């Protein structure tokens, strides 16, 4: 850690991990309701459980992005943050809003559109929080060194704030509502969030491989260019069946197929950088998370997205468990993992110790990633059976759900592995810091004593 103000990232990462815990625990509860449907059905119905599960996810990822920005921007811009104090006030406000929202949800206080359930005043608070962040980071970037990484990160963060404004528009016409709802949801996760993802990944690659910045920056432009060129019109794959014109089936199919390209480029980029450098960074866990992020994003967001994005296929699979499978692996691979990667990378510096608890952290990687992969396979199988029975044979929804009950048990099993992995990760990150040193060095020091 070169700049004192980078320290604010520690608080952001702690808050993000707290909400990560909430997300996974509530997710496990939701998975349990799928197999034992009477669980808490009166006290905490499924719709409230799911609301907390998805909202906690979105908020912890955003807090992680903010933390990542506060960590990497001073280092990139080679200057202290404009105002570390404002950054902490921003975090306090955001965490207060998030907790207030969750408590409100439990008491059935919410707006009713998927993912945008936050009451109006919390939506307004989110805008205020975003403006505080943008003000702070933009001024920091302007007074220091300008790099491609900070530029792309800023464009991504400004985009997040701008597109969120569409959440305030809720017309009475359902089709219009859905069309603009995707301006927030799709243009976030298949648009500007990819800019944040790619810039954090590029930062990690520069730091860990030592490859020349010029090379990394060209790759970064290629990745984010492909992301937006494909992703913006790729929104069309949500406009097939909601009352929007038929031409979206052509535009959406074509451009959302191309959405695989940026993720494939990320995989090539990450592995090329590591291969080119030949340097072995001591934080092996951070390297594993970074490479794993590229690979899992490619599978989850890229391949599992492509699986059902062509209009003639989506006609049958739309809104089945196939969508759920894709959603889970895409969010984990692209956005959860990039956060876990930067946290794993930054934590030793923030806590002032050499890389520690490497083995535990690597274990948590395989537990969580294995669990998510297994969950995705289970849901994909469930979705394929569901598609055939319900969409081809025309069997009733509940009848079909009984046929695929076994897959929900398997999914819950995957979820349990993710939960254990999460606990191991949290211990590796926040637990007592133990320095892992190569045996030879440790032995040598013992001899000298």
């Amino acid at each position, binding site marked *: 850690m070169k700049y004192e103000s980078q320290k604010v990232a520690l608080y952001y990462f702690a808050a993000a991990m707290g909400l990560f815990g909430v997300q996974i625990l509530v997710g496990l509860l939701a998975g349990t309701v799928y197999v034992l449907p009477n669980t808490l059905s*009166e006290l905490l119905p499924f719709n409230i459980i*799911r609301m907390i599960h998805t909202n906690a996810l979105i908020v912890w990822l955003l807090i992680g992005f903010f933390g990542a920005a506060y960590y990497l921007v001073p280092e990139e811009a080679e200057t202290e943050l404009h105002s570390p104090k404002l950054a902490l006030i921003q975090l306090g406000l955001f965490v207060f809003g998030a907790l207030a929202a969750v408590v409100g949800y439990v008491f059935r206080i919410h707006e009713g559109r998927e993912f945008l359930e936050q009451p109006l005043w919390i939506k307004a608070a989110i805008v205020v929080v975003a403006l505080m962040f943008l003000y702070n980071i933009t001024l920091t970037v302007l007074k220091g060194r300008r790099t491609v990484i900070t530029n792309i990160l800023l464009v991504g963060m400004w985009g997040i704030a701008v597109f969120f404004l569409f959440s305030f528009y809720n017309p009475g*016409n359902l089709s*219009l509502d859905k069309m603009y709802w995707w301006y927030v949801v799709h243009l976030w996760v298949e648009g500007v969030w990819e800019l944040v993802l790619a810039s954090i990944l590029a930062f990690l690659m520069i730091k860990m491989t030592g490859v020349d910045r010029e090379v990394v*920056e060209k790759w970064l432009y290629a990745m984010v260019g492909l992301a*937006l060129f494909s992703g913006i019109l790729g929104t069309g794959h949500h406009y097939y069946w909601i009352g929007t014109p038929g031409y979206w089936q052509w535009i959406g199919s074509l451009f959302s197929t191309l959405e695989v390209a940026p993720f494939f480029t990320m995989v090539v980029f990450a592995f090329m950088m590591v291969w080119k450098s030949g340097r072995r960074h001591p934080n092996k866990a951070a390297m594993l998370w970074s490479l794993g992020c590229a690979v899992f994003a490619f599978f989850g967001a890229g391949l599992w997205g492509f699986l059902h994005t062509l209009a003639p296929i989506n006609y049958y699979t739309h809104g089945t468990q196939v969508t759920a499978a894709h959603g889970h692996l895409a969010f984990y691979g692209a956005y959860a993992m990039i956060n876990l990667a930067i946290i794993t990378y930054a934590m030793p510096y923030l806590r002032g110790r050499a890389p520690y608890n490497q083995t535990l952290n690597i274990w948590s990687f395989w537990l969580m990633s294995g669990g998510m992969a297994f969950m995705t396979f289970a849901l994909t199988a469930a979705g394929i059976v569901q598609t055939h029975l319900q969409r081809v044979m*025309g069997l009733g929804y509940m009848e079909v759900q009984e046929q695929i009950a076994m897959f929900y048990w398997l999914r819950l099993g995957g979820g349990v592995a993710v939960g254990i992995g999460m606990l191991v990760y949290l211990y590796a990150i926040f637990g007592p810091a133990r320095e892992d040193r190569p045996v030879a060095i440790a032995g040598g020091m013992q001899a000298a004593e």
Partner: protein
Amino acid sequence: MTERFTKAAARNIFYGGSLFFFATFIALTALSHNYVVNTSTDKKTLSEAVVRGKHVWEKNSCINCHTLLGEGAYFAPELGNVWLRYGGDKDPEGAVMALKSWMAAQPSGIEGRRQMPQFHLTEGEVEDLAAFLEWTSRINTQNWPPKLSG
């Protein structure tokens, strides 16, 4: 990446291309907005009751169990065409009656079956909800879903 492909060129392609695709997207959105308002949805029957029904739908967060036109949670049946499953296109009054008794009978309490909460809707709210679902069932969705089962 060759030396001839400079960073400045990469930057220009990124910003220029993104602006181009975004402008195209905005233009197509404008066309689609017009199409939705005038062609695919029924402007004349988008009554106050339908809009109130949409708010009943939202206030009780139905979307976090059900899907509507395929979007939402995947825990409970698709409701974009539930009006047709209830036979509302042939017997609207019968469908509203059926919806009222369904809402009143929740939760079923049956062991091992997914539970729909009791939302304590007034009679008027259920009627508004029915109006909303009826209006929704007439949106031109390019013939989605493939089967009545949703």
